């Protein structure tokens, strides 16, 4: 192991291990799942690493939406800390991972504009910013205040997103929906993420490719399946709306899905060990749709890969990336839980959608 790698990653991996120890424990998850309502969820979370984020807001103003925003605030802080401590060579990839939230924010902003929502309504649907954010909160506010998607795209001038959005704008104007803008953003973002991944070398590349490459695989597969099953797009459209690269998912797999091959067979060919696809196998979806089942199964698989990164040599990009991805899925699970508890959904309705908890049990 190169001394330079040890020196470069010593601080970030120590910090990440410190953060990792504050992850929600299985006992806390059990208590959260058993919580009778949103209030109890808040009380339980206030005793965890999320506690300080809830203290900022008076309890009577803590709506589910605000709670989700505060949870995301912790994710933003975690990203900022990890990016700050990461060595220069790891930083571009981590920055691009963070920009996924900016892409999501752009989409949320466009949807807000389409729905005629005010800035106050849109604001708490967004991810909190930090010093590495390219789009500041004021930029997004200007976009909403412009009052139109065309005006909002003009406001993105000077960011890496503008070129993509500006070219896709004519399709938005012609078709009158956000689909072309969102797909263009997703594709451009994933290409940039892949370029950052491709620039890594040695162990960084190996571990980065394993995790982020799998993340790209997951998105690419889900896009292909979604475009075929839900949007009923043609083979050519599916190919154009997906990407020709990946870690385990090859272009042939995507083309097979696009051309109408059996999705379950394709998935089994790519991931012979993949479990948890009852909806596909039995064709009797209960609380989840087949696509959700596939999504959750692949996400759980990715989270298990992330957990396994914490075993073995720690001086590479794998540890920070794994922690960030686990944090992301933990956040998503909490969002599902909060929304479920706020809507009084029974446990069996939302349990199948949780990713990290199930992955913990599978891993142990």
């Amino acid at each position, binding site marked *: 192991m190169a001394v330079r790698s040890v*020196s470069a990653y*010593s*601080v970030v*991996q*120590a*910090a990440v*291990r*410190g953060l990792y*120890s*504050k992850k929600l424990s299985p006992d806390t998850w059990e208590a959260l799942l058993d919580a009778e309502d949103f209030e109890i969820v808040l009380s339980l979370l206030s005793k965890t690493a999320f506690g300080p984020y809830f203290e900022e807001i008076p309890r009577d103003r803590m709506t589910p939406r605000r709670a989700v925003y505060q949870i995301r605030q912790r994710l933003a802080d975690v990203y900022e800390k990890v990016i700050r401590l990461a060595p220069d060579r790891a930083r571009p990839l981590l920055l691009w991972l963070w920009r996924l939230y900016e892409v999501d924010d752009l989409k949320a902003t466009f949807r807000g504009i389409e729905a005629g929502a005010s800035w106050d309504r849109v604001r708490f649907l967004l991810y909190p910013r930090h010093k590495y954010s390219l789009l500041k909160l004021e930029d997004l506010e200007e976009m909403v*205040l412009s009052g139109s998607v065309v005006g909002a795209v003009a406001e993105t001038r000077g960011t890496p997103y503008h*070129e*993509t959005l500006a*070219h*896709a704008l*004519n*399709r938005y104007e012609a078709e009158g929906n956000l689909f*072309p803008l969102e797909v*263009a953003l997703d594709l451009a973002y994933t*290409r940039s993420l892949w370029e950052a991944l491709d620039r890594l070398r040695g162990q960084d590349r190996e571990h980065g490719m394993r995790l982020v490459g799998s993340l790209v695989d997951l998105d690419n597969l889900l896009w292909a399946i979604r475009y075929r099953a839900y949007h009923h*797009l*043609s*083979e*050519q*459209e599916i*190919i*154009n*709306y997906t990407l*020709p690269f990946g870690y385990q998912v090859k*272009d042939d797999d995507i083309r097979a899905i696009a051309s109408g091959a059996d999705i379950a067979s394709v998935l089994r060919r790519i991931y012979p060990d993949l479990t948890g696809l009852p909806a596909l196998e039995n064709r009797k979806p209960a609380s989840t749709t087949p696509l959700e089942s596939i999504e959750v199964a692949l996400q759980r698989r990715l989270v298990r890969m992330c957990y396994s990164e914490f075993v073995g040599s720690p001086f590479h990009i794998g540890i920070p990336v794994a922690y960030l991805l686990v944090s992301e899925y933990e956040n998503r699970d909490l969002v599902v839980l909060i929304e479920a508890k706020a809507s009084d959904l029974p446990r069996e309705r939302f349990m199948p959608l949780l990713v990290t908890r199930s992955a913990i049990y599978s891993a142990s």
Partner: protein
Amino acid sequence: MFRPENMKRVELVVPDSIVVQVTEALAASHVFHPAASHLPQTDHIPPGGEDWREQATTFANLERRVLAVMEDLGVSEGPPPEETPHLIEPEVARVDLEHLEQQVEGPVRQLEEQQERLEQLQEYVRQLQTIADLDVELEALRNRHYLYALMGTMPTVNLARLRSSLDIIPSVLVEMDRHDHLATVILFGAQRDAEILDRAARSAYLKPLDLPETYRGTPAEVLEALRAGIERTRRRVREGEATIRRIHQARVDHLRHLLWRVRASRTIVETIARYGQLRNRYVVIRVIEGWVPESQLPALEERMAEVSDQVVLRTNDPEKQDEGEVPVALNNPGLLKPFQDLVTNYGYPSYRETDPTLVTALTFSLLFGAMFGDVGHGLLLLLAGFLLISTQSLSVLRSLRGVAPLLIACGFTGAVFGALYGSIFGFEHLIQPLWLRPVDGIQTILIGTVTAGAALLSLGMIYNLVNALLVGDVGRLLFGHNGLSGLVLYWSLLGLVAGRFVGRLPIPSGVFLALAAVCGTALALDEILANLVNGQRPLAKGGWGTSLIEGFFILFETAISLFSNTLSFVRVGAFAVAHGALGLMILILANRIGPGQGFAYWGVVAVGNLFLVAFEGLVVGIQTLRLEYYEFFGRFFSGSGVRYSPLTLLPREQ
């Protein structure tokens, strides 16, 4: 000079009826730094009272709209007015602005339409030029019975994907041209596959050339028509621009006046919205809290007395718990201002900490001089500094006057080190060195500069001890990486290294080893020990295991960084050596070009020296800044202080 100015917490209690006058007077005093109020703010609006927050939003929107009109007309903000504007009624500003917007909106929209049309026509021309030689009428391409043809632009990254998506469809994608990230292409196929091809092209973001059907004929004929259209549109654009210029001239002063007034009003109402509020049934009292330098307090009291005798002003010293929010006003003499700017560019010391400006001035000048040692070059910088101070005429030079003391100090130390190195304008043998020539004593100078670096790092750590003592942070003082443990560890390691190279030292190496072991352990356990002495529990916040692992790696990182930070100062010696080598290179070049030491020789020497001063000055300046910020400041300076930023309605020169 060594400490930030003493500050006083000021609390003004004023009746709501005079809150605007008091706020304007506070802004005009230029000494009042507002602080967040501990009392309720504008949650409870008395009947008939003003909602200042709403007004702030109104003014923010008005400001945005004024700026939009100014942008449309190409009007810059201009300098702030001589006289500070007063609060304007939002309704008055709104009516005024609407009148201006009506006047501007029509001509601007027409101009934008013509500009868009011009861009569109130019885009058509750019695309059609790629098929200018084609002797086929465009209608024929549009209305083929059997052939499908679609021309347009698409992102180059999508080209390969579109081609591969059409693998099984008989088709050809011809790339005609590339421009930035876009390619001009024509997609050919069979008309029977038109729907498939259309959908594929659309999904690859192929933007079709939507040339209106009125353009008929061959591409060459259409291009001619388009160029005529471009000419006509350009004429209309010029006319539109002339109209905008006329409105600009007529309205420039009006717009600037309105902008500054709205902006000042926004500041006033935003400030008032943050005041605390006390109320009873009949009267609303505003409580204004903030900070004022102790030396400015009498003047502020006098000014408030002039505004009204109903203003009650109370002052307090900062409490221990307030220290994180006490603003920091650094007050150094004018000569040290550029060095103060270097410090504040990094961050502000916290209120109880020392002001490192003076020591920065000394260390910056010395480090710069050591790397830039040349009597002639130093004197040139010195001269440039004096010129900047004395020049009155050129505004560009006047704006650079602030850096003159920096040039003078660095020029002076450069000249002194030049004398020590025996170097003048790159000539290494014209004067005898007072110390040594860097190129003749490379090892000596490298060891010397690393030793100086170790001294500077130690100074940084001692500064950290002083700061920790001043803020009463015992944990940081004893166990911080740059506290007593860090300093003793560093000196022990230096002692061990020195013992290895020098031979016998008065202190045996066993003592150094023992000290290093004790201090290293203290550093690894710094968080736990700091919590212990500061009385904070739990001792290990993330659990003992995590803290110990983290502590071990932080100790490892500290040791590596101490080593690399010390070696970082090798660059000081390396630059001194490089200077001699560069000077020699210029002389070799001059001898080649002008062997007889005539005009050409001296020309090359002069130009070479000017290049050296500019190039080396820039590089050495950057390196010095790096050493100051990363190696020196990083030891003691958190930069967590709050900048003293007095309330003002107009931007002021610092």
